[in-house]
């Protein structure tokens, strides 16, 4: 971690931020509440420190910039979340990571090798699961996985256990063309595991799966990390990213908005827990004792419920002031800020 003094572009307030070398952190200006992202001076990484390095990646489709000067790094052995609204450029970035599209600018290095030069070498080390997956209608799952094993030069004897691993053993001799969407996705998971790669690139890995399998896939991702693999996955399910990832990159309109740990992201955005207090006979009015209290960020009343965001240390004061003023408190709930709130705040700030 290093620290750096930055200046708010709007109110020119100077303040200090803390972060990792090379990272981009999101934060709000303490004075004017402008949300922005500030890059740390790029510190040269030690060799082997980063597993995936994306630098100034730009991809244009005709006039539209799908990815615009995007840079971020993924460290060896971490689970890296890749987050953004639909059309933000997530899939385009993943395609570029695999060297499947012709990029307009930038460079992509995986294990210190250029994907556009040493693609064949690198791809032996990659397990990939696309968002929209499809196989060959007239082949059985075993024939399909045999094909992929051969492509990777892996012994085919692992195929039956792979099929069993993803719970498709009952469909072993059926044609993939007769499979449901979820079953095809599971076959995709099996395919990505071939040869125990050290890097996994997963594009929306749990999309289209039922709850039971979502859990199994998430457990598998955790297991991969325990084995020392690097996982980068994109998702629109924020709770998933929050539960699994060490770090996240948030992109919008092809640009990086933030790259940081989940906890840091919430902290930099000054996201405070929200109190929900139910008071009989409140009738949608914020009590005067609350409006006069120091350290309250927002106070809002809806029916019998009072919503308050404030510093954690004055929570007790809020309750005692309410009681002292004669209000009868029925219920108190504290809602911690989630990545979703962070995400929405960042995207809104960007737009």
């Amino acid at each position, binding site marked *: 971690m290093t620290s750096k003094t930055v200046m708010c572009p709007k109110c020119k307030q100077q303040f200090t931020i803390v972060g990792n070398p090379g990272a981009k952190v999101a934060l709000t200006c303490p004075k004017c509440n402008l949300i922005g992202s500030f890059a740390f001076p790029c510190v040269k990484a030690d060799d082997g420190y980063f597993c995936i390095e994306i630098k100034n990646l730009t991809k244009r489709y005709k006039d539209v910039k799908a990815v615009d000067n995007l840079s971020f790094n993924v460290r060896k052995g971490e689970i890296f979340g890749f987050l953004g609204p639909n059309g933000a450029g997530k899939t385009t970035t993943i*395609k570029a990571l695999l060297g499947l599209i012709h990029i307009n600018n930038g460079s992509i290095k995986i294990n210190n090798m250029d994907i556009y030069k040493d693609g064949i070498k690198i*791809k032996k080390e990659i397990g990939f699961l696309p968002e929209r997956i499809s196989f*060959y209608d007239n082949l059985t799952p075993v024939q399909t996985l045999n*094909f992929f094993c051969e492509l*990777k030069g892996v012994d085919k004897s692992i195929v039956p256990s792979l099929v069993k691993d993803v719970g498709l053993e009952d469909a072993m001799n059926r044609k993939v063309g007769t499979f449901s969407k979820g079953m095809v996705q599971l076959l995709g998971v099996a395919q990505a595991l071939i040869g125990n790669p050290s890097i996994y690139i997963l594009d929306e890995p749990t999309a289209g799966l039922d709850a039971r399998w979502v859990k199994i896939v998430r457990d598998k991702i955790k297991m991969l990390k325990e084995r020392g693999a690097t996982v980068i996955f994109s998702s629109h399910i924020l709770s998933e990213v929050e539960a699994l990832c060490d770090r996240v990159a948030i992109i919008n309109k092809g640009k990086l908005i933030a790259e940081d740990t989940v906890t840091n992201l919430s902290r930099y955005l000054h996201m405070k827990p929200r109190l929900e207090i139910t008071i009989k006979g409140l009738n949608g009015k914020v009590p005067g004792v609350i409006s006069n209290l120091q350290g309250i960020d927002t106070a809002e009343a809806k029916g019998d419920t009072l919503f308050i965001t404030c510093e954690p240390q004055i929570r007790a004061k809020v309750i005692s002031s309410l009681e002292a003023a004669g209000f009868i408190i029925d219920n108190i709930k504290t809602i911690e800020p989630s990545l979703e709130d962070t995400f929405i705040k960042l995207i809104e700030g960007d737009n």
Partner: protein
Amino acid sequence: MIKPKSIYIVAKKEFLDNIRNKWVILLTILFVLLIVVFSYVAGGQTGEDTFGNMQNTVFGLIGISSLLIPLIAIILGFSTISGEAESGALYVVLSYPIKRMEVLLGKLLGLGLVITVSIFLGFGLGGIVIALTVGTQSFWGYIAFILLSIFLGFIYLSLAICISSYCKRRITSIGGGILVFFWGMIYGTVLMGIYFGAGYSMNDLMSGNYPDWFFNSVVFSPTDLSQTAVQRAFGVTTISAAGFEMSIPEFLSMPVLLLSQIIWFVIPLVLAYYFFKKRDI
């Protein structure tokens, strides 16, 4: 470096998948039935033909094969890249350590093998019928016919794959496939149009008054090239039909015919690779 093993792996997968394609199975059954029935009727029953001069049989078989073989090839090839790119299957394959050139050649060989199986089934059974009913005098001509038919299949496959790697979507490549198929079918009609347009009359046609370009222009149609080559292989030099005769000009010798077909095979394949290489998956 292109690895033959990678090409073989893709070819094997393409073969296993497409040999079970229901349209291909249906067309192969139709092909086999037509060939066997025709060999029996034209070869044995009319009594006119012998294997030494099996003009009627050959013309009948050419008619069947030059319709069905291009059709099977186009059905196999038209969506092999555009369709798989759209469904996402190609996306997975290219995330593996394989080159696009290897994928393309593997597809060509695997799908070509499916056509070869169809052709062997049809011509093999047809050949047995001919051998039983008329004899085996034209054995080598028949073998050349089979090889030329397989080659015709590969030419159309190369054209279909080219369309498939050019078109962004499956639906547009269907259009391209239909266009290529009909070019072979309507070429004769187009040629007739040009013939009459150039001032020739019906009488000229009947009395065998053709300019050189009339025959030589078969180089523009892979189907006609193949048909002419088959006739040459059987030693047919004059075609007599509907009371008039025309002879195949000297210019269209076997080497010229074969070379033109090779060009029809190679150019679309080179273009296919160029489009595929440039493509964003």
